[in-house]
């Protein structure tokens, strides 16, 4: 019997935590997503959302004792929550922290670095949990029977997306990625009239037929026009990516700290309209703190 996969959003905001009455629906915590296959638990990014996840893990029965932490990149909004992650202080806990290779583990270095005394009162070496530096082989790993593939994203300083596959289910986490409009694309497209934009073939290939694609679409076309090169995508470009890859569900992620819940709703409506016009057969929604999906 195939066990279901679960995905839960703990932090969906980009750049900086944004607690406010106008972010109450989609949430103000920075990136953190739980992906669970059977008893194997992955944590994608350690933004401020990981604090609530940690509190939740501690109360679960049975409590997980082995966690797999995958960091897309080490910009602040993806690591800042780790010092407040309660399971890291629990002696019985094992946390695998995945780096680039056997010899290089930048996430390990940066997560420990941000706990030096200049920044935080508790040092990394004082954590009760066993923090294990782990790595992929040729961007692939099989963890708890789940095939995990790391793939490159377009973001200043570099970034990785992650593909999780098991039992025919396919989940992709791809945040902090800029899809650059190409010559021939209609950009900006304020009236939503243009054809599908060109999307890197590698992205389409890795996400082909995914049950869920969680993708950075921090901007709309208008916002993106003034923020080219910042490493984030327009929601229309991401919609076109999902349509071309035939994904079943697209979660718009990494919401800009300046946009309100109402803005997010409007963005999603425009993406749904565009996908429909381009014959996309998918569900599009905004990633929202506290929402759990089952596949």
């Amino acid at each position, binding site marked *: 019997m195939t066990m279901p996969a*679960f995905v839960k959003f703990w932090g969906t905001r980009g750049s900086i935590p944004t607690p406010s009455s106008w972010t*109450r*629906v989609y949430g103000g915590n920075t990136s953190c997503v739980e992906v669970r296959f059977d008893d194997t638990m992955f944590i994608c990014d350690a933004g401020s959302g990981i604090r609530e996840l940690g509190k939740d893990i501690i109360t679960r029965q049975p409590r997980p004792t082995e966690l797999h932490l995958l960091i897309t990149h080490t910009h602040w909004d993806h690591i800042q929550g780790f010092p407040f992650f309660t399971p890291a202080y629990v002696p019985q806990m094992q946390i695998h922290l995945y780096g680039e290779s056997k010899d290089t583990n930048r996430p390990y270095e940066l997560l420990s670095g941000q706990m030096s005394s200049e920044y935080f009162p508790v040092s990394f070496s004082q954590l009760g949990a066993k923090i294990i530096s782990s790595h992929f082989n040729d961007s692939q790993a099989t963890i708890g029977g789940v095939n995990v593939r790391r793939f490159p994203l377009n973001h200043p300083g570099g970034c990785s997306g992650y593909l999780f596959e098991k039992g025919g289910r396919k989940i992709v986490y791809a945040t902090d990625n800029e899809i650059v409009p190409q010559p021939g694309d209609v950009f900006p497209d304020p009236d939503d009239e243009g054809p599908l934009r060109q999307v890197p073939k590698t992205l389409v290939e890795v996400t082909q037929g995914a049950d869920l694609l969680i993708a950075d679409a921090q901007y709309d076309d208008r916002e993106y026009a003034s923020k080219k090169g910042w490493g984030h995508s327009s929601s229309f470009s991401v919609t076109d990516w999902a349509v071309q890859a035939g994904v079943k*569900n697209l979660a718009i992620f990494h919401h800009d700290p300046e946009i309100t819940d109402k803005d997010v709703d409007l963005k999603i409506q425009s993406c749904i309209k565009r996908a429909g016009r381009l014959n996309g057969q998918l*569900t599009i*929604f905004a990633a*929202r*703190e*506290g*929402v*759990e*999906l*089952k596949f």
Partner: protein
Amino acid sequence: MSTSQFEATIATSISVVRRERELRGRYLEQIEGEGSPRQIPLERPQLVIGRGEADVPLTSLRASRQHAILTLKGMDFTIRDNESHNGIFLNGVKIHSAILRDGDVLQVADCAFIFREG
């Protein structure tokens, strides 16, 4: 310094400690399906939505007996699909669980509800 500068400060026995607002009356407003329109107050920390003898009873055959569970956690109501046959939808998206916010549209079987916070 003259005492007149302090005249605006009036001695009082009124407590100035911030007072936590009482939990606002929250309810489900059924807008579609048999039984609508109706309002269902959420006055207990846990309620079952389902067919038959549930806290929020539904008549639809598409509803499971204990279809979904609403639970108060802290200040928030969470809804969870209780392994129902047809699932639950939040604002049109099939979910397993979610923290509810004012205005959310919840679909259970043939029924639709709006979650209201006061």
